[in-house]
């Protein structure tokens, strides 16, 4: 493969952003919008092409590029079955974000589109990088555009939320930087592929695992460091919430699989009870918190924490079902939560309130809206026939293999999620139209319908026919687990 397809994927949005920055925009910003939409669609096509030519029968990294960069550290990117779906998720969500700005972003559209495109570049970079330093670069670089997105276009408490988001994540990440540099001096490389084969000395694994964990746990977010998420979500503009929920949170889940499990098998094994406890607490506690929320966005934000609790639970089962389920759950959550935030955005743009009590009986005024909202509510609940079901089911199956109690407790979370989502739906959509304000509220317009149905189709399609996704990740995950168990045994016999 001579054509650097991954670097093109990473660079294209940045080039687009530069282009937008330098073209003199006309007053209504039409051309900037079309340019950015065009760029992001081109990126989507490129990534779909990538999926097409991707070889599903090998677990090796494909499309690898390796260039001299920092002398001791190389610029190395490549993808395998675990990461390709996240790349596609990113390129899939970004055009939808750009489409959604029509109604949600009222000022400084040009800067917003630049931020979104830069964000896309960095996120693709995170999923492609095969070097710890490069990974860190992309992982942290994402803070800058996200900080601006929340801070400039957010709600009333946007400054507080933006600062909280930035400082929380930065604090988590600096320890990871220490760990990365330590790994370099201990093993002589930060190349992930080489590190897989060299292995990290046993006595260092626990402490390094914790350093990585501090970063990923904040980003996931896991209980008890999840508090930045509801703030950030509530204050961010709709497109920002979509990016946050759909992709940014997945960077940590991906990081857990690729780095925590891949580099530190002994430590991961050692910390299983710890992660289980945090995940279970996250699932049950944040579900209960979600039940109490009066703000729709906050409710969905807390449900995100609960869903990501499932993801971490599934990853640390170290079983084929658990990890595949987690990846599937992340993709599913990427689609569903993005759509739910867009749904909230739709009514917020019309009535400028996100409080649940201000709504009710929308079904009579907005039938189209009620239908799509239903699809995604059920997707979040995990109804069979949606992607949510398959993810949660596999995760629970994997968990049952490892710990009966954990599985039982996590199942309670499933019930709770049904409770808060359906209750939300009932209060907002059904019931009588009590609020006179809501009379004559407009149903979905064309672009909103388009965006939401584009998200609904894969949610249902992959719910019934998940094979394309599993086919992509299966080989990589099983090889990954074989390697993982080999490593564990190696360390055990060494002792």
């Amino acid at each position, binding site marked *: 493969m001579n054509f650097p397809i991954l670097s093109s994927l990473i660079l294209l949005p940045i080039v687009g952003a530069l282009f937008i920055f330098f073209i003199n925009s006309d007053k209504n910003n039409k051309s900037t919008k079309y340019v950015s939409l065009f760029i992001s669609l081109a990126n989507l096509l490129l990534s779909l092409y990538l999926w097409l030519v991707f070889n599903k029968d090998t677990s090796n990294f494909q499309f690898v590029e390796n260039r*001299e*960069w*920092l*002398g001791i550290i190389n610029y190395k990117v490549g993808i395998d079955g675990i990461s390709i779906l996240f790349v596609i998720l990113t390129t899939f969500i970004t055009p939808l974000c750009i489409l959604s700005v029509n109604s949600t972003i009222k000022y400084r559209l040009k*800067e917003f589109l630049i931020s979104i495109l830069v964000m896309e570049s960095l996120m693709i970079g995170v999923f492609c990088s095969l070097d710890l*330093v490069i990974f*860190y*670069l992309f992982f*942290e*670089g994402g*803070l*800058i555009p996200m*900080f*601006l997105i929340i*801070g*400039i276009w957010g709600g009333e408490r*946007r*400054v507080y939320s*933006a*600062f909280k988001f*930035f*400082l929380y994540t*930065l*604090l988590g990440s*600096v*320890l990871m*930087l*220490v760990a990365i*540099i*330590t790994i*370099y*001096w201990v093993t002589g490389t930060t190349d992930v592929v080489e590190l897989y084969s060299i292995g990290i000395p046993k006595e260092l694994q626990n402490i390094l695992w914790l350093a990585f964990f501090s970063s990923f746990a904040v980003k996931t977010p896991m209980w008890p460091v999840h508090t930045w998420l509801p703030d950030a979500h509530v204050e961010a503009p709709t497109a920002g919430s979509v990016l946050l929920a759909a992709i940014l949170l997945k960077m940590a889940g991906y990081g857990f699989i690729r780095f925590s499990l891949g580099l530190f098998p002994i430590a991961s094994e050692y910390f299983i009870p710890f992660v289980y406890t945090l995940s279970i607490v996250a699932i049950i506690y944040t579900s209960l918190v979600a039940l109490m929320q009066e703000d729709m966005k906050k409710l969905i934000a807390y449900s995100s924490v609960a869903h990501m609790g499932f993801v971490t639970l599934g990853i640390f089962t170290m079983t084929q079902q658990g990890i595949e389920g987690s990846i599937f759950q992340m993709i599913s959550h990427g689609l569903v939560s993005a759509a739910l935030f867009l749904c909230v955005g739709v009514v917020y743009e019309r009535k400028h309130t996100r409080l649940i009590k201000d709504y009710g009986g929308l079904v009579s005024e907005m039938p189209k809206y009620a239908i799509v909202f239903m699809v995604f509510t059920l997707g979040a609940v995990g109804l069979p026939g949606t992607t949510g079901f398959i993810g949660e089911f596999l995760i629970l199956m994997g968990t049952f293999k490892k710990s009966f109690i954990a599985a039982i407790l996590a199942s309670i979370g499933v019930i709770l999620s049904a409770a808060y989502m359906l209750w939300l739906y009932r209060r907002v959509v059904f019931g009588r139209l009590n609020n006179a304000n809501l009379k004559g509220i407009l149903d979905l317009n064309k672009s909103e319908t388009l965006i939401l149905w584009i998200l609904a189709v894969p949610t249902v399609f992959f719910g019934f026919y998940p094979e394309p996704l599993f086919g992509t990740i299966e080989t990589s995950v099983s090889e990954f687990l074989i390697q993982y168990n080999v490593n564990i045994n190696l360390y055990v016999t060494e002792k």
Partner: protein
Amino acid sequence: MTNLNFIYSELTLAFSIMLLLIIGVFKKKSSSLIYNLSILTLLIIFILSLSLFGKNSTSLFINSYKIDYLSTFMKGLLYLSGIFVMLSSTRYLILFQIFKIEYPILLLSSILGMSIMISSNDLIVFYMGLELQSLALYVLASFKRENPLSAESGLKYFVLSALSSGLLLYGCSLIYGYAGSTNFDIISSNINSVNYGLTLGIVFILVGLAFKISAVPFHMWAPDVYQGSPTSVTIFFAILPKIAALTVFIRFLYIPFINLIDQWQVIIIFLSIASMIFGAVAAIGQKNLKRLMAYSSISHMGFALAGLAVGTNEGIQSSITYMSLYVIMNLSFFSSLFMLKINQKYYETIDDLSGLSKNHPMLSLAMLVSLFSLAGIPPLAGFFAKFYIFMAVIEQEMYFLAIVGLLSTVVAAFYYLRIIKTIYFDEEKQKYDKDHNLGLKLSLILSTLIIATYFIYPSGLISIISKIIII
């Protein structure tokens, strides 16, 4: 003396200072001419110093003046930043009514003093250079005589600096007494064992040097002097003396006293940690941008010292890399400060930046880049600067220093974010003039571009700096 060709740049500088002085005295209204000639002089000596790259190191004047890779690189950096400092501040000087013939001449004398410091291989030569640069700086700090703040900052700097020079001189005499020489190489060979007099001498000299780079706890002068001096002097203070002082730090610690590393390492670690933490915490409450930059530079010097504390060549190189990138970041930030003017008046508090991004998108973007870079957020240059430092620090397994340093960057991120917040999130307040002269634009655009695109080819700078081998 055939070896004189190694110090052409210093000679040229010294002669042009005298020549410019003569021109200034005899020709009326020549301040603009002298200013431009000074820039030209710096350019010429920069090119002259470039020609020394790749030559073998030599010692001159009975081994008391050293020309090696370190001195050549640092001098190049010094002259180049001198050029850009002068280019960016022309307009400011005119509007601030301090565009006089003495100004560029004092700057050049100070730079001459610094080049002598950089090359010094002897305590006396080093002290001479130090005093030459300090004397010029005292005058520069109080150059706006009628402004009480400026006069205060000049006096404050003079008193405290004189005190530190006294300590330094006392340290020199102690070392001379115990080691029997003032020459670095001879001291190095004369030291056989640790004794208290020598350690005390090192401590005194370190105190004096720490004062010059404003490391905690010898930083007290910095905020007042930064704020009180004219901005064109502040940018000079923030950049050039630190280049010279850091070079002396390197030479002083690693040539005569490398064997006593156990004695001074703890001191440097302490200075470093204290500066990083104090600089980060104290800047949080600041409202004046210049004052804030003083605290910021204190914390940055803490990072540069962290590299020196390591005691390896990698550590020294990381420190020099840090210094080079620090220079560029400061140049970028101060250049954007020069752009905040309406008619005759310059603005310098955080509140004045309110909503800047609405009317000045380019300027705001430049400030965004330089601030995020100062905060050390990837992929900007500031991240790499810190990355190299931590690479060196962690190689020697000094985890405590690394973790404290990184946590202090999180604290420091807060106040940089606060400025960005004011620029981007707040309501617009006032429109600034847009007619800036070419030199200012040039220095802002160049420095910002370097910061923003450093990640594309980071190994360039490293491959130059990695040739500096001291130990």
